[in-house]
């Protein structure tokens, strides 16, 4: 047999690696959760999990931290997906935590509920007694993520200690922990944004319509486009215009930047991503607060 036949292309190799990591999680932990944000990375994660355990159902509970400030499509999409998979869904609600007085809403024009998510995430993981949480973080997204392990150990407070990470060699993943501690696991660590899109195209993975170019009422703020929404107060000078836009990443509506685009299908998106001159997180207001915003949030327990 020629060796040429025994070579996987990069997407199949990444897929094999991610499936391997997911199966390790199912084998090494008692009660793993899969963090589902509704974004393309978590949709990809669900797709990979489906492939990893077929023909059985995925052995993870889906956990969604709901800021209450969503694009409507996200929730509809989530519910349909959960039904199709026959999976279990647990929703942690930021609104409920605010109502209970555990969290205080930020005020002002740049108010965002993204920072309130950490509290609700940790609470939901604790209440559900989840000992591992799978996330769709990728190392190419942000510089603090570049050093994240596949299996990332968290102390009892859910905190990450970047200086004291367990070495990770070959494909040996050490998920041992003391009572009360848990792990965050990132099976798609080695994928780039372009890999994700190419794979989605290759596999025909269904995505919410928000990812494709559509007409929407938007306004400019700090070099970004934000969606007009009852949840996002506008300054008087911020004028709403209709434009053709799409999302590159989806989060809380108040900080999800939209991009002017005419990519109405995957070929178009891949073209755009390939020549993109801004990282996808370049559209996220939450990363822009300080130079090390992501690292600081991760230490506290953010994804």
């Amino acid at each position, binding site marked *: 047999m020629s060796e040429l036949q025994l070579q996987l292309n990069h997407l199949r190799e990444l897929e094999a690696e991610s499936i391997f990591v997911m199966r390790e999680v199912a084998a090494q932990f008692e009660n793993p959760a899969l963090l589902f944000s509704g974004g393309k990375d978590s949709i990809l994660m669900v797709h990979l999990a489906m492939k990893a355990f077929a023909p059985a159902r995925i052995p993870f509970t889906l956990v969604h931290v709901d800021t209450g400030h969503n694009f409507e499509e996200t929730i509809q999409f989530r519910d349909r997906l959960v039904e199709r998979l026959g999976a279990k869904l647990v929703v942690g609600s930021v609104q409920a935590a605010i109502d209970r007085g555990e969290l205080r809403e930020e005020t002002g024009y740049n108010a965002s509920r993204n920072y309130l998510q950490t509290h609700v995430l940790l609470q939901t993981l604790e209440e559900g007694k989840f000992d591992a949480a799978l996330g769709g973080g990728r*190392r190419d997204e942000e510089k603090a993520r570049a050093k994240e392990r596949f299996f990332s150990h968290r102390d009892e407070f859910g905190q990450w200690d970047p200086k004291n990470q367990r070495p*990770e060699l070959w494909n040996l993943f050490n998920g041992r922990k003391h009572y009360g501690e848990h792990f965050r696991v990132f099976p798609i660590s080695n994928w780039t944004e372009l890999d994700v899109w190419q794979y989605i195209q290759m596999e025909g993975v269904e995505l919410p319509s928000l990812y494709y170019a559509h007409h929407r009422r938007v306004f400019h703020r700090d070099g970004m486009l934000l969606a007009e929404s009852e949840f996002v107060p506008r300054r008087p000078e911020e004028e709403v215009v209709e434009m053709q836009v799409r999302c590159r990443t989806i989060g809380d509506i108040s900080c999800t930047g939209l991009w002017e685009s005419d990519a109405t299908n995957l070929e178009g998106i891949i073209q755009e991503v390939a020549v993109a001159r801004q990282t996808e997180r370049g559209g996220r207001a939450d990363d822009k607060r300080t130079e090390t915003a992501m690292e600081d949030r991760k230490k506290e327990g953010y994804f």
Partner: protein
Amino acid sequence: MSTPTEHTELLRFSTAGSVDDGKSTLIGRLLYDSKSIFEDQYDAISKTSEKRGEEGVNLALLTDGLKAEREQGITIDVAYRYFSTPKRKFIIADTPGHIQYTRNMVTGASTANVALILVDARKGILEQTRRHAFISSLLQIPHLVVCINKMDLVEWDEAVYNKIKDEFSSFSHKLDVKDVHFIPISALTGDNVVERSENMSWYDGSTLLYYLENVHIGSDHNFIDARFPVQYVIRPYRDEFHDYRGYAGRVAGGVFRKGDEVTVLPSGFTSTVAAVDTYEGEISEAFAPMSVTLRLEDEIDISRGDMIVRTNNQPESTQDVEVMICWFNERPLQPRGKYTVMHTSRSVRCIVKDVRYKLDINTLHRNEEELTIGLNDIGRVQLRTTAPLFVDPYRRNRITGSIILVDEQTNETVAAGMVI
């Protein structure tokens, strides 16, 4: 960034260099010249360069991540970087070069196809260069590329390049490296990194990027010895799949096909592969590093930690394992100490029976007197396990030949080991 295609392969390489050899500049250059840097990243580093009063944009800033590192101006952990060309997608494991970070170098090297070693043309081969070359050979990185950097500072002189090349070759002969390649470059100006150098017309070899795009990695996996560590047993508990029992795992060596006669370790039962399953359905064959699910003709009790192998080609099944280890923890190896060994999907307990010698990684001298194995030390030890492991020599298979040791009290990964 050019778009990879369906035919794009994945190549992992590790970098190591002494402080100031220009490693960060080189990686920044590869990312920048292959158009993998985004405008906002570029703006951020140019702002930082300006704030620090640096002249021009410091591409090296692209590659350091954590705050502490930025403050101290050094790389202390393994950081992963990505770029791609139409031919290949590259994953760089960027590791610090100093001796106190040997463990990080070992970590970065463990999965690499290529080791990139940087030498400052003005300084020539240093102790650290030898150390990196040794670690690359210890971890059996199949290809080594030595970049002789800062050629602009030695008037692009061929004699300097040749002298360093000869010196490197004279000691790398003693190491277990199969494929060594030399390239004279300037990371700062970009000569021979992505574009051919006009200053070094005497050099007719390839540029670094061309090398990385074309080095043959097709035989880096073992396609001979069929090994399938069982990770997880799939039992759907659904009517339509009532009797389904699949063994999920990632092929660690060789090729598996329907009809193959296989033996399951440790039980020793023999059966036949009934199907190689994936989500899409049955496929004709599976090879490393594919993740698939195997079904067998016979009902045998199989669980995680078992290994499915070809009956006529089996690994060594043993409770006495000789390994070269690299120690990762502040607390030294405890002679007669007990640890958990993780090997493929299998975990067993072990006791350290004997420390054979400690290796001076600069001189390769074997020290049989002073046997304390502390942080970053490398040595040969003998382990006795509570249950058999199914191992191949690391030289033959990097997956079935590798282990890690876990401290049973702290749960930390304290060592990496290569089976001899």
